[in-house]
């Protein structure tokens, strides 16, 4: 029986060797250093994804899709002032002054559209491509396709995670499930991986203790030769032991300078209306650290964009909570040379209809027919706008991009072909983009 370690040494695909089995990974892969390059697609432009998930449906017309009034009759549009920013002259809302400084790095998609204005369903579709059934999350698909860059850490981490169905690996092997750090509603400033450390024993004794356990385990396994589960547990215990030292280090921000913490607004927690105290600054700083450590897919979550009533007040709070941290993240990724191979994705499950000036209303609903996402880094154009919505922002009219197209595009940027990245389950071939045809939006590529 070949142990997993032997297998790893002999398989050139390294930690992503599972992908071999799906005849996807045909290129050469060097464990721990390089992404897979399936023969069918162009080489990978990005190695990792940081997904800034803005749940609740961000108001696109008050953030990135500028809709001034046209004609004589008042119509729904932008309710806040916009300016053109950077050399590219991208229109960005005054509520996002820090992000606006990075206008020339953004690749804005204004023609997004989805199938439903129901939160739960659209949120699921954004993450898994399917709105009703449990399917693998985008992060799981990518981890499955590419494996991990760091053998001491999970390949998919979800910060302030929403419900498990959006970071589940579903039918993909469970090692590709997202590891949650802080689940929705928990205090994010203290969130960590469960049981990651314990001070009941000094670490040297812990090592001795595990050595004793493993001695017993090996004897037990020897008497039961050929049981791969028992061997797997022995391997997994070692990995967990290593995680005890690697993960808490990453989660410990005490070695960051005061200036950095301030720049990210770590610990700042606004709780106004729908805007929830998600410590988004800590999430962004953690994301940078995980990216540096080689985590493949990092999802951040800020809930609260569902500002039905008190639209203006809650919108302002949501922008304020996320603006500076995102800007700091973009700044650091650039400074550290990570921007080129890190794809940053910003967006939520849908958008909102705009407010109509002077009609006295301060209330918005959901709009799945036209909304905005932006990408940055990882091989996409910068200071670029793709697609547009109608004059009132009611629906995408040009350069329409569906979630499945976005998924196909992200996979492509990671060097994966959305049709080749599939999995046979219950007699059907599944892929992130679902059964319908998805198109890679190559116009976005740099």
């Amino acid at each position, binding site marked *: 029986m070949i142990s997993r370690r032997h297998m790893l040494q002999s398989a050139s695909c390294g930690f992503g060797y599972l992908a071999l089995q799906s005849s996807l990974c045909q290129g050469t892969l060097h464990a721990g250093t390089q992404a897979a390059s399936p023969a069918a697609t162009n080489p990978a432009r990005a190695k990792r994804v940081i997904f800034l998930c803005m749940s609740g449906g961000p108001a696109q017309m008050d953030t990135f899709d500028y809709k001034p009034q046209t004609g004589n009759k008042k119509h729904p549009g932008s309710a806040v002032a916009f300016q053109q920013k950077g050399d590219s002259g991208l229109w960005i809302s005054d509520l996002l002054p820090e992000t606006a400084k990075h206008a020339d790095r953004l690749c804005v998609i204004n023609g997004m559209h989805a199938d439903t204005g129901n939160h739960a369903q659209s949120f699921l579709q954004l993450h898994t491509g399917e709105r009703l059934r449990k399917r693998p999350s985008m992060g799981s698909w990518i981890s499955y396709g590419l494996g991990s860059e760091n053998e001491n850490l999970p390949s998919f981490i979800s910060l302030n995670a929403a419900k498990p169905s959006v970071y589940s690996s579903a039918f993909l092997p469970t090692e590709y499930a997202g590891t949650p750090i802080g689940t929705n509603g928990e205090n994010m400033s203290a969130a960590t991986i469960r049981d990651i450390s314990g001070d009941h024993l000094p670490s040297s*004794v812990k090592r001795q203790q595990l050595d004793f356990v493993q001695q017993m385990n090996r*004897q037990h396994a020897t008497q039961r030769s*050929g049981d791969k589960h028992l061997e797997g547990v022995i391997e997994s215990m070692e990995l967990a*032991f290593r995680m005890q030292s690697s993960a808490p280090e990453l989660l410990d921000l005490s070695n960051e300078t005061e200036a950095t913490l301030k720049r990210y607004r770590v610990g700042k927690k606004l709780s106004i209306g729908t805007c929830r105290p998600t410590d988004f600054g800590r999430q962004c700083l953690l994301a940078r650290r995980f990216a540096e450590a080689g985590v493949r897919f990092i999802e951040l979550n800020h809930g609260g964009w569902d500002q039905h009533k008190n639209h203006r007040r809650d919108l302002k709070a949501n922008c304020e909570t996320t603006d500076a941290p995102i800007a700091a993240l973009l700044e650091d990724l650039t400074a550290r040379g990570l921007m080129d191979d890190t794809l940053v994705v910003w967006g939520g499950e849908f958008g909102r209809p705009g407010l109509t000036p002077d009609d006295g209303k301060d209330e918005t609903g959901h709009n799945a027919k036209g909304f905005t996402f932006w990408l940055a880094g990882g091989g996409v154009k910068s200071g670029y706008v793709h697609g547009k919505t109608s004059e009132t922002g009611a629906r995408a009219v040009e350069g329409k991009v569906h979630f499945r197209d976005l998924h196909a595009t992200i996979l492509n940027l990671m060097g994966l072909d959305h049709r080749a990245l599939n999995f046979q389950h219950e007699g059907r071939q599944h892929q992130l983009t679902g059964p319908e045809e998805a198109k890679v939006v190559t116009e976005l590529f740099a």
Partner: protein
Amino acid sequence: MFVVSRSRILTTFVSRKPIALAIGVLVAFQASSGFSEPAREQTDFFEKKIRPILVEHCYECHATDSKEVGGKFLLDTQAGMATGGESGAVIVSGKPDESLLMQSMRYDGMEMPPTGKLPESVLNDFEKWITQGAFDPRTKASNRSVPPAEDLDALWSFQTRVVSPTPRVIDATWSRGPLDQFVLARMEAVGLKPTHDADATTLVRRLYFDLTGLPPTAEQVTNFVQDHQQHGDGAVKQVVDRLLAGPQFGVRWGRHWLDVARYGESNGDDGLGRNATFPHAWRYRDYVIDAMNRDPGYDHFLREQIIGDTLRATDAAEKNRYLVATGFLALGSKPASAMNSNFAMDVVDDQINVVSTGVLGLSVACARCHDHKHDPIPTRDYYALAGIFSSTQTLYGAAGNENLTAPPTELHALRSSLVGDQVRPDRSKTPVFADGYLAAIQEYQPLIRESLTEHPTALKPEAKLSFNETDFAKVKETALHGEFSGDAESYTVSFWFRNVIKNDARPITTYLFSRAKLGDKALPGDHLGIGGKHEKAVTGKLFVFNGNEKKKSVRGSTVIPPNSWNHVVLARRGGRIEVHLNGQLELEDKLEATFGKSREFSLGRRSDKFAPLEGNVGEFAAYERALDRDAILKLHAASGQPKGIIPTTIDGFAMGVREKAKPADIKIHINGDGAKKGASVTRGVLTAYETLPTKSTHRFDTGVFEVGAESSGRKELAEWLTRDDHPHTSRVMVNRIWMHLMGRGIVTTPDDFGVYGARPSHPKLLDYLAEAFVRQGWSVKQMIRQIVLSRTYQLASRHDADSLRLDPDNRWIARHPRRRLDAESLRDSILHVTGGLDHSPQQGSAVEEIDALINWPPGESTNLHRESNHRSIYLCMLRHAPPPELVAFDLPDAVGIAGKREVTTLPTQTLFLLNSEFVVSQAGIYAQKLLEDPSLTDEFRVKSVFLACFQRLPSDVELRQAIDYLVAIGDHFEKNEADSVKRAHRVWKSFCQAMLMTNEFRYVD
């Protein structure tokens, strides 16, 4: 990330040949003859204006030669057009506005063609065409017909059971019975031989874990091994029967069913981050544990859960059990109702899912939106079932008192006695009292006693009243006044009355009696009355109110019909009030006396003249003390009048379902969305059984599925599901049982027996077991007994290289599979060996008093779990906030049906063993216990830990390793722990924790 179970992954890649089957609703065209001669003009219009559009924009998806026919709807033939597709007919001749075709072209709800809305002029043409009768001259039939059954095999589970003769085997001595023979025959066919039998120690450990979820004690192992040496199989039978009869059996097997029933004690994230508690769900948990222990027959178990609310019960306990059982249909996880017009259908979807997937092993829920290409379950079937559940009212409770999450509903009230079945005595006639009644009353020395058949002396009528033998005092807008002789708090009044006012005619139907100062507007005193329309919960029921200052009222539960004669006794005993109605205790409660020094009372109206009685009052008595209950009952009995029905109290509430007032069929929801509806579907069950390809001789005939006018159809559904010859119900359940005992199902997808599921490895065995199951009265325990007593079950788990090479996945069961303890068994076993496990059931739930949102507001983490040493099944199973002691080991999320749990190997599991508070503290407790007796040697202690954890003694090598470890750790602590007692504890604690972490502790051979 961290890869372990490679074979599982590899097997997932074994692809199955896709099967091209489209049973169900395909257009079956009958060429119609006698087609009337079309007018040239109409034909021209069609050919010029309509057909070209259809060809250009619609045929791609809606024609016979389309790759996949959209919505099962063909537009390329007249017949296809007329019949419509899965959403029903698309054209209502003459009525464009009601025609789905027109609506979709206008992008109203549906959007057709999806590539873009057609020009206004085209829409006008279609509108005109439909208005004029949608004339369609095409006659050529679509040549697409139901494809032949290329693979009848895919529909194996829809065919009825076949009882096969026991197969011939080469080794005639090995088998103990037909079960073994079926297994051996398959083994021999692939050239395998069964491995040797498990030794007695291994077998008893396996049996304990499988039947109770706990390891045996060292003593139980020793006893069994001795017994086994002497009695062989007899010893096995004995231990099996004992374990099956014990209470821990239900704990273990109840948990298996709770996985199927997606049991949870909170809603789970509703999509808005809200997670409402289900404070009453635990009753369903207790019901399931009890049902597993009672073993009423799986068929009955299902009926209880699906139609318990309508089942006849012989006593209150049984009735309550049935009501609780229907929680099965109510405790699903629901998406938020806010901004969700489909909420009601989402609840129905969950119910369809739990019944179809849980009971039939078929995923029907996919058909909510579309017919599926290969699936024999059409959208129509989904809505036939949906009609049944939408005719059912789901009682899930207050939903955390958060309307955005779900609109609040009532719950089933669990009553102390049966109400419905008691016959109410006829009280329409004036009572004629028995001879000894007066004497009996006198015996208790009343202060006042007036028959009211003649003008009273001790009571003063306010106005002139008539008194007579036949109907006593007749009252209307008046009262009789009296006085006690002192102001003692305790007193009793007894009288008979008839009220003629309807119970919902006035805010308060009537006041009967006041012990209060007459005319005082603040109403200090006791006021006895019958509730009216003011408060529904009290309508027609007795209550006592103690005045405007204290404002407290206590109430009864029996509705008093107007025009009936009733006997009421009000007794105050200091601060408590009792009311008896017709010789039954109606209410009893604390109620402060507020009448002070007043001695006055008023009969037939409240003391302030409000709500007077209209009717009669007779045989009045007042006592200046509280009569005891015996006396009150004796006095009623002496009247010779029939006793009242036993009033009920509510002992608690349960989630569940009940029939809706107006059951009805529902319409197809196009694309699963309620905004657009298609044709109405008659309530019914799955049709796939009857649409099987005709060559099948094993067709399951549903017959006529007729739903009674007053019935939701659940009754009929339950009858259909539990038919002895149902192809799925028994197979699915025996497969679940087999899987829990044998590690893998005969069908490895226990929740999917459909065309996408796995095929059975032993089809004949499956049918043999299913048949035996039904013949043994659907007894789960008998089925388990039969399996565990087989030689197949009792095989060793070790194997030779040959069997591993020939059968790596152990499909042919030449050995017993080694299995890891699941989350509950791991925790329970740890508590068991450390001595802390409480085997008794835990009462209630950590959230039984909490109707609220979990972790709300966000950022305010709340921990609702409470510490418990009871078995894990009793921990609070909050969805998306599961018990921390269980969460690491593949606990199902309780949102979907989980007939089979995942068995993953993740580092987070090791982290739990290394660092969790639970494991660390249990190790500490264990160490404490080991060190209690200082005279024991370390060697003795090590041996006792081996015995407790592994049910065996250490080998010499292991013993030495253990002692070496203890010495090494002791040396380490020598430096930094001066206290030798504390040091010993730390050393032993680390040893105990290590033992609990080992594979041997966590795996069962």
